[in-house]
């Protein structure tokens, strides 16, 4: 009797430790795989930084670190194009677009989530469909419109087509629909009108999703290339993505300065990633984008 009860736990513990060891091995293999994959992902960024430090005649070297690292490319890039001005422009455009899209998104989503009105589902579906329309379809009409408004080669023209985003509206509508109905009713009983309920009850409780959305909008606007390319004429009135492209000319590409400018352009985004790491990851997971 005694021996039985004693031997039983020992045998199970042996089994457990074997199981544990197997799990540990699996975890190690998993981590190794992820490290390799993240190396693949990080390497281009590293290569951009390293190339930006290489001298012009060594630009195609394959050494992992340049023999003589220098900031010459940065100096050249800064003198060749108004990088600071372009970064500032990009910041203004990205911030404005983020703010405006959040605003229109919150307002539209509130309408869809809270009220039934004639053709509401139809309108919602239409908004969803605009998401599927590629920029190539709308770029000519948009261009003509902006041109007639006399806004060619100006920052407002870069912001104008981005006043509302289907993605923002749909994401916010979903989260507002999921908002507890009783809390809204409590607010109504407490005397809060629709406007007040939106800003004092709903928005503060959706700040997680709103922050995530803001990050996504900001990054995608920062990285936008096509529309500014179409619209901009002068270096003073354009964004950094266009500035980078100015080092690619018919005579050839100045890879060093291009890499330097690219490094400067990605700096703010890198900063966002580092500072708001957790938020960024969450926002990608929430929106289903990877």
């Amino acid at each position, binding site marked *: 009797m005694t021996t039985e009860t004693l031997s039983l736990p020992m045998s199970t513990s042996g089994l457990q430790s074997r199981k544990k060891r197997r799990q540990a091995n699996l975890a190690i293999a998993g981590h190794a795989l992820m490290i390799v994959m993240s190396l693949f992902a990080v390497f281009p960024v590293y290569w951009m930084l390293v190339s930006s430090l290489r001298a012009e005649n060594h630009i195609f070297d394959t050494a992992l670190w340049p023999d003589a690292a220098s900031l010459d490319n940065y100096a050249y890039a800064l003198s060749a194009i108004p990088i600071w001005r372009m970064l500032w422009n990009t910041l203004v455009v990205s911030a404005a677009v983020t703010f405006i899209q959040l605003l229109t998104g919150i307002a539209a989503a509130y309408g869809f989530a809270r009220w039934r009105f004639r053709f509401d589902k139809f309108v919602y579906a239409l908004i969803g469909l605009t998401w599927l329309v590629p920029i190539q379809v709308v770029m000519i009409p948009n261009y003509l419109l902006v041109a007639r408004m006399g806004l060619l080669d100006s920052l407002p023209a870069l912001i104008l087509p981005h006043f509302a985003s289907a993605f923002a509206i749909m994401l916010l509508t979903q989260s507002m629909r999921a908002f*507890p109905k*009783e*809390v809204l*009713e*409590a*607010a*109504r*009983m*407490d*005397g*809060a009108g629709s406007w*007040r309920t939106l800003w004092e*009850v709903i928005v*503060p*409780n959706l700040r997680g999703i709103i922050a995530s959305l803001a990050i996504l909008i900001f990054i995608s606007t920062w990285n936008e290339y096509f529309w500014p390319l179409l619209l901009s004429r002068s270096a003073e009135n354009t964004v950094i993505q266009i500035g980078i492209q100015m080092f690619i000319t018919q005579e050839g590409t100045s890879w060093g300065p291009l890499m330097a400018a690219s490094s400067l352009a990605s700096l703010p985004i890198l900063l966002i990633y580092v500072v708001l790491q957790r938020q960024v990851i969450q926002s990608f997971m929430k929106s289903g984008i990877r």
Partner: protein
Amino acid sequence: MANLQIANARKSYDNKQVLHGIDLHIEDGTFLVIVGPSGCGKSTLLRMIAGLEDITDGTISIDDEVVNDLEPSARGCAMVFQNYALYPHMSVEQNIGYPLKIAGVSKPERARKVAEAAALLELGDYLDRRPAQLSGGQRQRVAMGRAIVREPRLFLFDEPLSNLDAKLRVQMRIEIKRLHRRLSATSVFVTHDQVEAMTLADKLVVMNAGKVEQVGTPGEIYRAPASAFVAGFLGAPAMNFLPGKVLQQGNLHILPNTEIAVHSQELHQWTGREITIGIRPESLLLGKPSAEGIPAHVDLIEELGGSRVAYCRTDGPEIAVVMHGDLTVREGDRVSIGLLPEHLHFFEKTNGQRLGGGQASQQAQASRAMHVAFN
């Protein structure tokens, strides 16, 4: 403080009527409880009073003013929801003070009123906490605090205790009762729990399938239920229903084979007809097998601490009997179930309407004496 008048209130959702003409009058300061099975329309009625649902037909008046078209906030009602419905991002203090903030009450005045309500509900130590950091009972108290600070004309409660565990539920029930004593505010309390309903109500409304079945004090309704539905819904264990037939002189034949002398005047006009006989488990007496009473054998005994319930097999339906004291009956015993005519309730067989019987509370003493005799 206010009175509430509901006249012929109806509610339909997409042509499907769920409330079929409700009439109710609630006097100033009354604690009215609406009880009924799930889905009978209690919440719908309460939400119509609150202004959260449109009134399809009929009128609702508070203090003789028709409020059908008033916004919820203009009706002067405060509501406590089942799942508390607190603002997750606000502290307890902000939650309680929010209606005052909206009403434009100055900050110091607000702080004073919130402190007052918090003290009343013993929330003083939690004012800085968020709802997520509170227990269920505390959250419910915050919800009540938010209702109290507005000094509403009418308190509305929609099953506010159903999310709490059993012990806390009893505790909060007592607190609500105490609070009502103190504020004597007109209240409408909705629940599906008959114990909650009986203990809290000054006035009880039993609803079923979108209709009011009966209105009265808990005692009145318990003693003289207006229908078989009400009789079966209130009281635990539930009332026993036995098929019967009215014989000459108002005597009864309880199917299949028990006869009992009732001499009920009320039954005379039903002579020769089949009726339903209702009898509460606590009004029945278990005795040794005898010619009188319904022959049965004890199938199962449920121990309730203070008392025990015997579930007995008969030739007819199963009958539950509450056994008081130390009656020495065991499962499997053959017994005879003794009936006292004055404890029988009579209902029409087809529609369950009350025909009479059952008001004999003064005979309770006599039954105790009989009970001893049966032992």
